[in-house]
C-alpha cells in the first residue's frame, strides 16, 4: 500500500491563509490608523457587559471619549489633510471587505 501525501496542498493552504488573514488585518488596522489620523478616533463600547467582559468600565469609556475629542481638537493636520486621511481610511475598509469577498468567491467559483 502506497500512501501519497500532497505536501504542496498543505503549503498552499498555509500561504493562502497567511496572505488572506494578514491582508485583512493589515488593511483594517491601517483603516483605523487613518481614522485616528483624520481626528475621528473610534471609541467603540462593548455591546453588552456580560460577566466575562472586563475590558472597559463606563468611567473608562467616558475618559477614552474625552481623550479622543481632545486629540481631534489638537490635530496638527489641516482640514484638507484630515479629509484625505478619512477617505484613505474608508478606502482601506472597502479594500478589506473586497479581500474577504474575493476569498469567498475563489472558494465558491473554484469549486
Amino acid at each position, binding site marked *: 500500500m502506497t500512501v501519497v*501525501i500532497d505536501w504542496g496542498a498543505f503549503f498552499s493552504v498555509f500561504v493562502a*491563509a497567511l496572505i488572506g*488573514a494578514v491582508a485583512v*488585518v493589515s488593511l483594517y488596522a491601517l483603516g*483605523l490608523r487613518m481614522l485616528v489620523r483624520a481626528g475621528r478616533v473610534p471609541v467603540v*463600547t462593548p*455591546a453588552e457587559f456580560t460577566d466575562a*467582559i472586563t475590558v472597559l468600565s463606563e468611567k473608562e469609556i467616558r475618559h477614552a471619549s474625552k481623550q479622543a475629542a481632545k486629540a481631534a481638537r489638537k490635530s496638527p493636520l489641516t482640514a484638507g489633510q484630515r479629509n484625505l486621511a478619512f477617505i484613505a481610511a474608508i478606502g482601506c475598509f472597502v479594500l478589506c471587505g473586497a479581500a474577504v469577498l474575493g476569498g469567498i468567491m475563489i472558494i465558491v467559483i473554484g469549486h
Partner: protein
Amino acid sequence: METAALVVVLVIALALFFDFTNGFHDTANAMATPIATGALKPKTAVLLAAVLNLVGAFLSTEVAKTVSGGIVNEADIPHDLLPQLIFAGLIGAITWNMLTWLLGLPSSSSHALFGGLIGATLVGFGLAGINFGVVLSKVVLPALIAPLTAGLIAFAATKVAYGITRRYDGKPDGRSGFRWGQIFTSSMVALAHGTNDAQKTMGVITLALITVGWQTGDPGSEDFHNPEFWVIVACAFTIALGTYLGGWRIIRTLGKGLTEVKPAQGFAAESSTAATILASSAFGFALSTTQVASGSVIGSGLGRRGSVVRWRTAGRIAIGWLLTLPAAAAVGAFAALFVVWFDGWGVAIDAVIALVVIVGLFLRSRKNAVTSANAMSDVAESGHVVDLPDVPGPTRRTSRIELMRALERAERKADEAERAARRAKKLKKAGGTPGEIKAARKAADRAARKYAEAEQASQEWEALSASRRARAQLAEWDLAIDDQEGAR
C-alpha cells in the same frame, strides 16, 4: 435490501442529530471571542452564527467528497454491511461527544465522527475497508498541522494589528475600533464553520445513500460523490438550528478563559481561524474548527507583548485532542461488534444505545447547573494557555524614544544648572542683594537636581532594554512555580 434501506433512514436521522449537536456545541467556539470582547451581544452573536452557518453549508462540497468518497473503501465493503457500520460509527461519535461534554474534556466533533467511522469499519470489515492514504493526508495530518498553522498566522496577524495601530505619543490609538471589525471576522468564522462542519454530515449521508443506490448520477463520474441538494439543505438547516439553540450556553460559559482577549487580538485570531478553515475547505481537508479556533487564540495571545505559555494547560488540551480520534474509534468499534455478532439485531441494540445516549444528552441539557468543569467552551479553555501581564513592558521603540527624551532632558537641565550657577556668580561679583544671590543659587541647585534625575532616568531606560530578557525569564520561572504548587 429493505433492512439496508431502513438502516440508511436511521443513519440519516442519526447523522442529522450529530449535525445538530455539532452546531449546538460549536456556537460557543465560533462566537466566543466577539462576545468576550463585547463586540456583539450574545443573542445577536448566536443569531448571526446560525444564519452564517446556514449560508456556509452551501458554499463548497469538497469536504463532503472527502468523507463520502475517500475515507472508507465503499466499493470493497458489502453494501448491506456498510450502512450498519456507518450507523455504529455515528453512535461511537455521538457517545464520545456526549461523554467529553459531560466530563468537560476538550474534544472535537469532527474527529469523533471520523474516529467512530474508522473504528466501526476496522472491526466490521477489517483493514482493507479503510483508505489509509486519504485518512492520513485529509484527516490526520490536517488535524496536526491546522492548529499550528492557525496559531502561526494568528501570531503574525496580532503583531501586525498592534504594530500598525501603536502610537508612541501617548494619544488614543483607536484600537477599540477593532470591535466593529470583529463583527465581520466572527461572521466569517461562523461561515467557515458551516462550510467545513456541515459538509462532514453531508458526506456521511451521501456515503450511506451510495450503498443502497439512492445516490443519483453516474458512479464513474467525478461528481458522483457530490451530496444531493436535499442533503445539503437538510444538513445546512440542521446545523443552523443546532447553532441557534446552542446559544444559551454561550452566555454562561464565557466567564472564564477569554477575559483577557482584547479587540485587536480577537480580530486577528478570528481572521486567522476563518482564513485557515476556508482555505482548507477548498482543498477538501476535514478540519476540527474547535482546534483551529483554539490554535488561533493561543497564537494571538503569544503575539501580545510579555506573554508566556502555560505548558501544563497546553499539554492537557493537546492530549485531549490526540485522544479524541482513537477514543471515538474504540467506541465505534464497540458498537460495530454488535453488528458483527448479531447482524440486524445488532443494529437494533445499537439503536437502543443511541436512544439512551440521546435521551441522556437531552436530560443533561435540561439541567441548568453549569460549572466550569462541564460547560466550558473548548476555545475558552485555550485562553488559559497564555499568561499575559496586566501592563506589558515598553516596546523597543518606546524604550529608545524614552531614552532619547531622558537624554535630551538631562542635557537641557545641565545647561540650565550651569546658566543658573553662572548667574549667581555674576550677581555676587556685581554686588547683587543677598536675596537675589540666594534665589540664583537655589535655581542652580534645582536645575542640578533635575539634571541628576534626568540622568538617572536615561540610565534606567538603557538598563530596561538589557533587562527585558531577564524579566521574561523571571516571569517564566514564576509560572513554573505556580504550576508546581497547583499540581501539589
